[in-house]
């Protein structure tokens, strides 16, 4: 599903250049649930941003679902993001003046799905995350866990190939975190490929594979036995 070869990325900081990713080789199969771990500054978020086409790579190659991702202009990148990827952010990033249902329907709007169908689909995905009754509420009327579930529903609504989550539980308490992880595991059980960036070991243990980044290189890449979040909920 994801194929990365010899990925390099550096940021120019004035006259200095900060080499963040130094030759990453990494691949993800369909249906995997991968945790990318590392301390801050290890390059894990940069990696996720490149995977999410929110940032561009300097060197190396990136293939997503058989499509080489290179030399994308903003329009093309936007179309690919819309088609291939779903995002979940630490700070939820819901549009605050749109209701939960409208937020979930937004990626479908950019896919040019008709209004009626958009609303039906949005309600369906809200149902899946257990927020069907909250469809008409604004984000400000939802709790943190509910917001993140709306964000996950939104990411899933576009039916992406890969779900990318950047510290999805970073702003949540542990009970709520486990609820969100339970939801992510269920989505993964349905066959979706998910990558999670996290620095919390207990969250990483709930994935099926952990990739450790340190100073821009992968130091460890192991498959683990998944701990089900449902036992904590």
């Amino acid at each position, binding site marked *: 599903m994801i194929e990365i070869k010899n990925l390099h990325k550096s940021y120019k900081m004035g006259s200095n250049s900060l080499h963040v990713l130094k030759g990453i080789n990494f691949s993800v199969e369909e249906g995997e649930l991968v945790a990318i771990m590392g301390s801050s500054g290890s390059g894990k978020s940069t990696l996720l941003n490149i995977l999410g086409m929110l940032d561009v790579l300097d060197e190396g190659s990136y293939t997503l679902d058989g499509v080489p991702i290179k030399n994308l202009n903003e329009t093309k990148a936007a179309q690919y993001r819309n088609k291939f990827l779903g995002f979940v952010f630490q700070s939820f990033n819901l549009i605050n003046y749109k209701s939960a249902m409208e937020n979930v329907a937004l990626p479908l*709007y950019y896919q040019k799905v008709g*209004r009626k169908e958009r609303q039906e689909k949005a309600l369906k995905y809200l149902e899946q995350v257990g927020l069907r009754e909250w469809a008409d509420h604004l984000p400000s009327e939802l709790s943190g866990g509910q917001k993140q579930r709306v964000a996950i529903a939104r990411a899933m609504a576009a039916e992406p190939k890969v779900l990318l989550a950047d510290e999805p539980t970073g702003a949540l308490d542990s009970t709520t975190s486990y609820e969100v992880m339970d939801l992510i595991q269920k989505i993964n059980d349905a066959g979706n490929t998910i990558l999670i960036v996290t620095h919390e070991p207990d969250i990483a243990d709930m994935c099926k594979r952990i990739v450790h980044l340190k100073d821009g290189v992968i130091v460890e890449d192991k498959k683990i036995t998944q701990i089900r979040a449902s036992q904590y909920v």
Partner: protein
Amino acid sequence: MFSRDNWKEIFETIQKNKLRTFLSGFTVALGILIFVVLFGMGNGLVNTFEEFFGDDATNVLYVFPGRTTVPYKGYKSNRAIEFDNSDLADINKNFAMFIDYATPRISRGGLVKYKSESNNYTTRAVGPAHQYAEKTIMMKGRFLNEEDIRNSTKYVVIGRLVENDLFGSENSLGEYIDVAGSAFMVIGVFQDDGGDNEERLIYMPYTTRQLIEKNNDKIDQIIVAFKPEIGYAGAMALDRSLDRFFREKKYISPDDQSGVFIRNVADQLKQQQQFARVLQIIVAFVAFGTIIAGIIGISNIMVFVVKERTKELGIRKALGATPKSVISSILLESVFITTISGFLGMLLGVFILNSLGEKLKDYFITNPYIDITMAISATLVLILFGAIAGYIPAKRAADIKPIEALRDE
């Protein structure tokens, strides 16, 4: 770009961001409103100036006798100068090349009676050409003619309001009215654009007036109309020659400021028109300044709007919004708001101007109006510049990498 879905999305955004909508709408509406009102007032000012002269011919010189202040050629100072019929004849003879007509005017007040109605009116004893000098419009009957002058007929032509006052709804033609003790037959009724006072006048042949006043040949003033083809320079030259002619004939010193007066309507008109034009330019300058201020205002608001939405736009981009759709949604939103509010402001301005009408006449503003094409083009200019001003920050927002926009807290 113009699908129903896009508009729905835009309407929702507008509805749910009322402050933003109000700010940009208000700026544009206010800018256009002030522009329309100011520009209309400028036109009202010009209207007033034109009205000062609109009811009189502009190719005329009024010649009045005065009182000398300087002794000259054996005459003492403080001598009253008087005009008589020979002066009129001399003007007609000596200046025939330059003048269209010359007519005397002798003004007297007096009680005028018809049956039980009576009132005080000014009576002007004039020649037939006076009709052209005052642009008197005949409603019925006729004006005085040469025959009346020759025969010193006891005929009068009365103003519309005189007829109203004395006759009510009755017909006045052929009726006799009592003017300061003598009976005159009404042969015509006139109207005049110069206002109510001009329509409360009574005209009679000047020879009749002279006959009543012990058969003298005195004239109060002479109105001289020059041929329009001699132009402004010709009129000024005629002004000077008439002055010289009367000073010579009446033995008035060339240095005497008050022996004889000539009021040159053409000269006054020209000065007033220049004044009005300068005023209009100043008003137009201020009005265009308002438009520019409006453009700057809407640009600022657009920068603010885009800044405020940076994060939202980042989210939208992460969800698959293309730069084009980001720009078009910002622009459509702003053009929609500016168009609606711009035309509202314009209509309100036009409405204010219309309702003002004559109310500001005391401040020299008569019937302020704005050319509708001018109002609409000003509105369109503001909308266009609002869109251009909005495009720049919108483009910048669309170019920001979503990751940077999302980081923007």
